[in-house]
């Protein structure tokens, strides 16, 4: 038995898992319509490749990945595209997003699936196939999986951590997946292992799921894989990627680093399962397991097509009449869905029928008494009450000093707060304010840099104007010289009809080839053109010509500052601009 590590903090809310593990996974019937949002993963917004009226087959591409960190979206069943339109989303904002609405034809007819043996593919081909199949992290973060399957070039990959902890109350979809489909999960882990080449593969499962752990062990043995199935203590949020990595490997991944920088990568069990289905069966991600629990008569897990309206899914489990809302996700980190017509998406691991009996309304918020319970519960060892004071005071700089971006919003602090302060809400507020201000600051800095540049340009123009006037005076002198030369010229020759040279220096008299009259005329024209040019340049200067070294340096400095400002905050930019000398 390997020795485990501990993370600080954590809480033990009632698990409510038993309710939904009694029945096996059921396939949810085809819903009346499917609303498939195009943006279902972190990263780019997939482009729709179908339009209203198109017939689609199950698994057919309907949204094309837009860039590397983006994943394709597919039709969950065969049918007709009714619309590509804005529709309610399962998002706390309640904002609509672009969705492909499909009316099922009832046949559930697949596209031609192309199973492959991934061992015959190059690693990049496997990654691309995963991207094209819409495989994303199904633990809830929906980060495109292929983007996590490249090992760091500098840090050796020590451990691959597979997350079957499932620490949130009520949710049992990973539990049931491991119980019923362990072999395919393990095969999926094999793909990840082959791409990342870690030294060890550790599968972490909370010790309140002995059946799942046993099934996984059996599958690992059956497939003769060297994976280690580890039961970790049940302690919320042990299923947070960073917490599970800590428990299994002892490594702590701060917000400022990627886990691969520490030689570890983490995937959810359901992600491994869908990866296997995508590669070995050619099935893109068109469905997922969803726990339906809470205030319902028959809580259980369903295999649900992506795009199924939540209300239709909830109805299958027969909600009690006092149900007054739907929580997507668990009670610790989930959210009440603003519109029950919102569809199940790849991030939907659980629907909980909400009622006041199960989730009593919160007592009124009291002032913070600095008891420190939140700090003791915080798995990232933050000081939530300090962050709360600063967030409340809108002192966002201080919230950053106190590492607000290391907050994973697990809700432990809110859970234990005797004053009922919705701490996580304050932190979300502070984070979004900081993001907004960063954007505004960058815009303002850009404007400032442009203003500085304009000032510099004005000064340079003045200098240039003076210079041009001097040149014009020189041209006048040249004209006089030309006249003198013309007078001196005795014989005339063939005159070349030369186009006037732009530079004053080119007006050098060519006395031997010009006849006196013409030469004088030409010199006058030249001088006039020079004056006109000088005038023109005074109003329409070229920026980069004839700069003094001081000016050039000033321009360089501003350019350097501008380029730095695009990527870094002001505080770091100042010393850099000095270095630009």
């Amino acid at each position: 038995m390997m020795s485990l590590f501990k993370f600080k903090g954590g809480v033990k809310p009632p698990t409510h898992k038993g309710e939904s593990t009694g029945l096996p996974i059921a396939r949810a019937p085809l819903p009346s319509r499917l609303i498939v949002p195009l943006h279902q993963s972190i990263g780019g917004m997939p482009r729709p490749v179908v339009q209203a009226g198109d017939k689609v087959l199950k698994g057919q591409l309907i949204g094309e990945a837009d860039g590397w960190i983006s994943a394709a979206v597919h039709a969950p069943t065969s049918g007709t595209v009714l619309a590509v339109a804005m529709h309610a989303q399962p998002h706390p904002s309640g904002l609509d997003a672009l969705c492909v609405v499909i009316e099922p034809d009832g046949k559930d007819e697949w596209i031609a699936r192309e199973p492959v043996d991934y061992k015959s593919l190059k690693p990049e081909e496997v990654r691309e196939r995963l991207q094209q199949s819409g495989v994303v992290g199904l633990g809830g973060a929906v980060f495109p999986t292929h983007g996590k399957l490249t090992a760091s070039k500098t840090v050796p990959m020590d451990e691959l951590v597979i997350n079957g902890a499932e620490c949130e109350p009520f949710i049992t979809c990973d539990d049931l997946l491991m119980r019923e489909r362990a072999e395919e999960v393990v095969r999926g882990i094999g793909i990840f292992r082959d791409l990342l080449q870690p030294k060890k593969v550790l599968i972490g499962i909370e010790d309140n799921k002995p059946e799942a752990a046993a099934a996984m062990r059996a599958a690992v043995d059956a497939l003769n894989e060297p994976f280690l199935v580890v039961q970790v203590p049940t302690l919320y949020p042990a299923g947070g990627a960073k917490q599970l990595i800590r428990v299994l490997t002892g490594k702590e991944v701060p917000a400022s680093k990627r886990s691969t920088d520490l030689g570890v990568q983490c995937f959810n069990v359901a992600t491994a399962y869908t990866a296997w289905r995508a590669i070995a069966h050619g099935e893109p991600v068109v469905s997922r397991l969803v726990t339906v629990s809470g205030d319902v008569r028959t809580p259980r897990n369903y295999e649900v097509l992506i795009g199924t309206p939540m209300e239709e899914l909830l109805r299958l489990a027969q909600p009690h009449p006092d149900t007054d809302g739907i929580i997507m996700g668990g009670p610790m980190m989930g959210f009440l869905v603003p519109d029950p017509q919102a569809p199940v998406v790849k991030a939907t691991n659980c629907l909980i029928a909400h009622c006041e009996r199960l989730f009593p309304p919160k007592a009124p918020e009291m002032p913070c008494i600095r008891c420190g319970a939140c700090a003791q519960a915080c798995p990232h060892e933050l000081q939530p009450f300090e962050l709360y004071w600063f967030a409340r005071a809108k002192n966002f700089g201080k919230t950053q000093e106190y590492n607000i971006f290391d907050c994973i919003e697990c809700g432990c602090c809110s859970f234990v707060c005797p004053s009922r302060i919705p701490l996580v809400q304050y932190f979300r507020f502070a984070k979004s304010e900081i993001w907004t201000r960063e954007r505004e600051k960058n815009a303002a800095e850009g404007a400032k840099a442009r203003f500085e540049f304009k000032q510099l340009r004005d000064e340079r123009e003045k200098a240039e104007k003076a210079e041009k006037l001097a040149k014009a005076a020189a041209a006048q002198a040249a004209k006089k010289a030309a006249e003198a030369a013309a007078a001196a010229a005795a014989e005339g020759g063939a005159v070349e009809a030369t186009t006037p040279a732009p530079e004053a220096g080119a007006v050098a008299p060519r006395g031997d080839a010009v006849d006196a009259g013409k030469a004088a005329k030409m010199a006058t024209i030249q001088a006039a053109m020079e004056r006109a040019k000088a005038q023109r340049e005074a109003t329409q200067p070229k920026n980069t010509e004839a700069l003094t070294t001081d000016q050039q340096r000033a321009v360089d400095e501003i350019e350097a500052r501008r380029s730095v400002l695009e990527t870094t905050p002001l505080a770091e930019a100042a010393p850099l601009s000095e270095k630009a000398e």
Partner: protein
Amino acid sequence: MMLAPAPYFLKDVSVSQVMTQVCIALVPGIAAYAWLVGPAILVQLVIASLAALGAESLMLKLRGKPQALFLSDGSAIVTAWLIALTFPPLAPWWLVALGTVFAIVVAKHLYGGLGQNPFNPAMVAFAVCIVSFPALMSQWPSVGLQMPLNEQIKVILGLAPRVDALTGATPLDALKTALKLGEANIDVGQLLANQDIFGNFAGRGWEWVAGGYLLGGLWLWQRKIITWHVPTAFIGALALISGALWLYNPAQFASPLFHMLSGGAMLGAFFIATDPVSGCTTPRGKLIFGAGAGLLAYLIRVFGGYPDGVAFAVLLMNLCAPLIDLLSQPRIFGMKEKS
């Protein structure tokens, strides 16, 4: 449909639960106090509680805050009880009431109410009263005082004359005064053995009151209302400095045990210095806060002009708490190695 944010589960805890548990934890000490020193303390607890609730209610009204919510949070009662327990048990009723009203009105609500006070309100009351009414604040009944409760109540209510013979000094004060008067001829051992105000370890009777506070404090720790840091550091620092001086000159300095069980040491270590609002919050900060309070309490009670030093020690450390917190922020998850 309401759209409250997660988490939808909350642990069954509240401010009033916390405060109630603090009050429960005070019960063993109060019981020992009432039994061994005199039941008049119970009267003082009632007087202080009424004054606290009255002042709290008034301030809530003036500040436009909900009455029921804040009156039931229990924080005013905790303040009141700490005041009653630190004031002389036969102090006139108006002194206890005045101290309590000052604590609630000035030390608590003028700074913004619950959770906002930089100083421990009970200790502010103690400091204000001992500076303003030094004589009344120094009249402690001798243990084993033969006086019926109704007579004691009369004294408290001012219906009976305050007989000087009924009142004396605390054991700490008695020891200090005797040492000062006796100069080099007297040694602590003799003093403690001869005078009948001293018991087995410290002041007669009072040592068991301190034991009661210790018991209640340990229960608070077990209930996770307080952490071990402050009491351990407080008692540790007190034991360390008193032990050092005791070893250096046992004739002039009392033992660590005497100091730990005398005056407000146990009450201070478990109930006053642990006040989260006015104290430190980081683990290291709590250690510094507790140790500082313990050290200052010793210095003030032994070398200072007041019978005990806990109140001033805690107030002085309250002053430092924000700075200590600022400088003792713990390293967070993933940032423990020095970068």
